[in-house]
């Protein structure tokens, strides 16, 4: 859910210019070689061949992308990881559509270990990964073709069996029929079909023939198992003899173990071992409760020499000082900014402050590692960057990546948190298994506190904005100075940082759609010892807020309506203008609201999609506000699963709203202040607005939808709050202003 759109264009040039670094960092990740853009890959299926064992002996392997068993059950093998965003369902839809499968016979399993087949096209194809809302982007051609190829193979098998022409065979709902009366399900022909040559080219259906793609009534294949407790997540993995470990992480980022005393812990009933790993001390128990109790008895002395010891107020003060100075790097420069401001009739300025945010997925991080007698290693987990984890794990045990088998589990959320370049919890599981001599499989399970305090936050930022309008209120000069940590520098994606600009720091600011003749977006990257990461919608979590809240301030200074003002700076047929107008129409923007109801608007592009939102808030006279209703208009290209597009926008609104209303990670002398949901407050149901999602009909290929619902909600609500209370919200979370 997190790799920026920019990466699509950046990956290949970077790979060329910085080949040696990338090769070193990603190493064997690209060992398979070529870029998996082509259809030819259908013909080679090493991963599927080994994976098919997991589906039982009766599964016939068609391609790396699906198997069909003798009961006709279709198992889609997904390159994209499922964390709730519905990518499995989307990919299953693409396959089932072209395969003419029976939707009720479809299941999906995550796969890894074949970058030629599973490399993410949006990332250049050389790495498998889920992020940047690209699951439909990378799968759109690949999985439809896989479905069509398998269908052709089934037809060829039936034609041969029946002695008829393939063109005479009709396929519908998982059944092949011939006008002569011959009929048979997929299962009957699966084995024979899988042995047929994979067609070198297949014809995809015309949109008018689609039954599943774009069908708003299609239900998720996996909802029932999520209502009866049978869905299996990493936390549910149970292997014979498996032990459970909890970690003791350093209390400050950068601190290290100096010494530890585990004598008391070892005497706790059920504690099996206490071991040191490069990431901290692990307490290994027969079960979770034993490990937790054992942990309380371990005494650790930390070496805090290299630790980050600063507190949040000090860091924010540094950020604000930096924001007032000239930026260190320039991300966008249009026209002549100085001349623009000099000629402006009126200049306004504002600063915006954003705290660190925790992902806080409901399933705290975990992974399970087991070394087998044949020397192979198996790891169960939320493998959002599987190739990376495979390589890191192989290095720990001193083997090659092909000896590491990843079981891609579904996870209870992620929001970007399981896409880490150091493999954190996955690496921990392997280290612990190694430290106990691989004598048992080990599950490492973080507690909520571990999860919340282990870093990898949405970075903290300060934005300094300045706008100049001419005598007619026209916006003639705009500068935005972003100050904060880089997500990609010092990672395998460092090559993406060009001229001092990490695109994830400025995306959403550097591509502001408004026609402003003089415009500068600057960036000053800070060095702080707090690990940071992509957090659902990444840079747009703060850039869209700053830009869209400030545009409202400018519109007010110009004496203009916020929507009309935005539209005046957009081409009438542009995607931004179209969704703005759709949202305005659906929200009846020009009609007065009931007493104590107020509206705000925002529009933002992220991950190839454009979303406009109009938020309606109410006041109760006491200074508090409630977001009552949000109208969203979405252009995400073709909506493969319209109801899931709706679900992602509803959820994105709730996720983003929780953050701006009450979430904040702070540090006191280097220690994270928040540990659990008593003090870190994601949205609860009582604050969830009514959400209406309007999806623009589009024939463009699908673009992102897991993240784009998030960016507009903050500024839309802030703009409505200003109407309600006359207070501009410029410091997150809102509580800082509303309770002040």
């Amino acid at each position: 859910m997190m790799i920026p759109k920019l990466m699509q264009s950046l990956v290949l040039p970077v790979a060329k210019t910085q080949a040696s670094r990338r090769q070193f960092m990603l190493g064997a990740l690209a060992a398979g070689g070529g870029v998996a853009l082509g259809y030819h890959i259908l013909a080679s299926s090493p991963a599927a061949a080994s994976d098919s064992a997991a589906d039982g002996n009766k599964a016939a392997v068609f391609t790396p992308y699906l198997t069909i068993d003798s009961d006709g059950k279709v198992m889609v093998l997904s390159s994209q990881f499922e964390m709730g965003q519905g990518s499995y369902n989307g990919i299953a839809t693409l396959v089932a559509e072209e395969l003419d499968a029976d939707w009720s016979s479809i299941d999906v399993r995550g796969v890894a270990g074949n970058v030629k087949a599973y490399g993410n096209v949006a990332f250049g194809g050389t790495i498998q990964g889920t992020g940047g809302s690209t699951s439909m982007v990378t799968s759109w051609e690949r999985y439809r073709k896989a479905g069509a190829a398998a269908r052709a193979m089934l037809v060829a098998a039936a034609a041969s069996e029946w002695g008829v022409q393939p063109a005479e065979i009709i396929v519908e709902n998982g059944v092949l029929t011939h006008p002569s009366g011959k009929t048979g399900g997929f299962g009957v022909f699966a084995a024979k079909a899988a042995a047929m040559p994979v067609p070198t080219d297949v014809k995809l259906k015309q949109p008018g023939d689609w039954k599943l793609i774009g069908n708003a009534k299609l239900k998720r294949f996996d909802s029932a198992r999520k209502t009866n407790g049978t869905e299996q997540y990493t936390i549910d993995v149970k292997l014979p003899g498996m032990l459970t470990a909890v970690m003791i992480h350093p209390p400050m980022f950068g601190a290290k173990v100096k010494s530890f005393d585990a004598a008391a812990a070892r005497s706790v009933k059920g504690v099996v071992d206490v071991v040191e790993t490069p990431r901290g001390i692990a307490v290994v128990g027969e079960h979770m409760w034993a490990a937790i109790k054992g942990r309380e008895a371990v005494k650790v002395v930390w070496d805090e020499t290299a630790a980050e010891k600063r507190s949040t107020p000090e860091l924010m003060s540094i950020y604000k000082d930096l924001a007032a100075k000239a930026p260190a790097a320039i991300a966008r420069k249009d026209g002549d900014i100085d001349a623009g401001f000099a000629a402006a009739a009126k200049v306004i300025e504002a600063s915006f402050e954003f705290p660190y945010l925790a992902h806080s997925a409901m399933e705290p991080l975990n992974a399970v590692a087991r070394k087998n007698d044949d020397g192979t290693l198996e790891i169960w987990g939320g493998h959002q960057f599987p190739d990376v984890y495979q390589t890191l794990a192989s290095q720990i045990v001193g083997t090659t990546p092909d000896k590491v088998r990843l079981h891609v589990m579904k996870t209870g959320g992620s929001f970007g948190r399981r896409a880490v370049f150091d493999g954190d919890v996955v690496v921990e599981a392997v280290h612990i298994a190694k430290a106990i001599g691989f004598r048992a499989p080990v599950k490492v399970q973080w507690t909520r506190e571990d999860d919340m305090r282990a870093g990898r936050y949405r970075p903290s930022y300060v934005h300094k904005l300045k706008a100049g309008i001419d005598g007619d209120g026209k916006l003639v000069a705009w500068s935005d100075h972003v100050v904060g940590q880089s997500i990609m520098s010092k990672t395998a994606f460092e090559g993406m940082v060009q001229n001092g600009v990490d695109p994830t720091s400025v995306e959403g600011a550097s591509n502001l759609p408004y026609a402003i003749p003089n415009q500068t977006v600057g960036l000053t990257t800070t060095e702080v010892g707090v690990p940071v990461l992509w957090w659902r919608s990444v840079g747009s979590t703060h850039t869209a807020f700053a830009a869209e809240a400030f545009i409202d301030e400018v519109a007010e200074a110009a004496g203009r309506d916020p929507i009309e003002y935005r539209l005046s700076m957009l081409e009438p047929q542009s995607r931004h203008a179209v969704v703005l107008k759709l949202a305005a129409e659906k929200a009846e923007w020009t009609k007065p609201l009931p007493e104590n109801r107020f509206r705000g608007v925002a529009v933002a592009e992220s991950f190839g999609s454009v979303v406009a939102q109009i938020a309606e808030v109410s006041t109760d006279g006491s200074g508090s506000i409630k977001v009552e209703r949000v109208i969203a208009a979405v252009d995400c290209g073709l909506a493969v699963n319209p109801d899931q597009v709706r679900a992602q926008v509803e959820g994105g609104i709730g996720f983003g709203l929780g953050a701006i209303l009450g979430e904040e990670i702070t540090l006191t002398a280097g220690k994270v202040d928040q540990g659990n949901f008593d003090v870190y407050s994601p949205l609860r149901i009582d604050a969830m607005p009514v959400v209406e999602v309007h999806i623009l009909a589009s024939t463009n290929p699908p673009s992102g939808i897991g993240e784009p619902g998030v960016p507009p909600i903050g500024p839309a609500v802030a703009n409505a709050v200003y109407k309600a209370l006359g207070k501009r919200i410029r410091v997150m979370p809102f509580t800082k202003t509303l309770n002040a």
Partner: protein
Amino acid sequence: MVTLTINGNEHKVEAEADMPLLWALRDLVGLTGTKFGCGMAQCGACTVLLDGAPVRSCQTLVGDIGNAKVTTIEGLTGKVAETVQTVWADLDVPQCGYCQSGQIMSATDLLANNPKPTDDDIDAAMTGNLCRCATYHRIRAGIHEAAKRLEA
């Protein structure tokens, strides 16, 4: 050794009295539908029924349960629960699904005690159940729809 009655069956488990029911269910009995989210009764993912009333199993100690009957998502039965589960799938309420066992426990209890809940009733009853995917919009719709089907 403690004897627990879970979903109508007796289970003898090797647990100390201070072990939270959550970990006994998950690690000793093997019922993993009940989820760990926070360990301090802040998120509701571990909600089970104790003699029919919802409790947070992460804060319910095995030694305090006595003869009370434990019902987990795996053993949830009855017209209300089944309607809630059916509606949840019909409306595609879950996203990641991790919190939904707890949501369904709380929703079932709400509807069992209040057959026609208002939005405010729903907010009050469900506010202890966090959903990080924020499926709240559909949870609300799901409870209303289940109420409608149960009335019919």
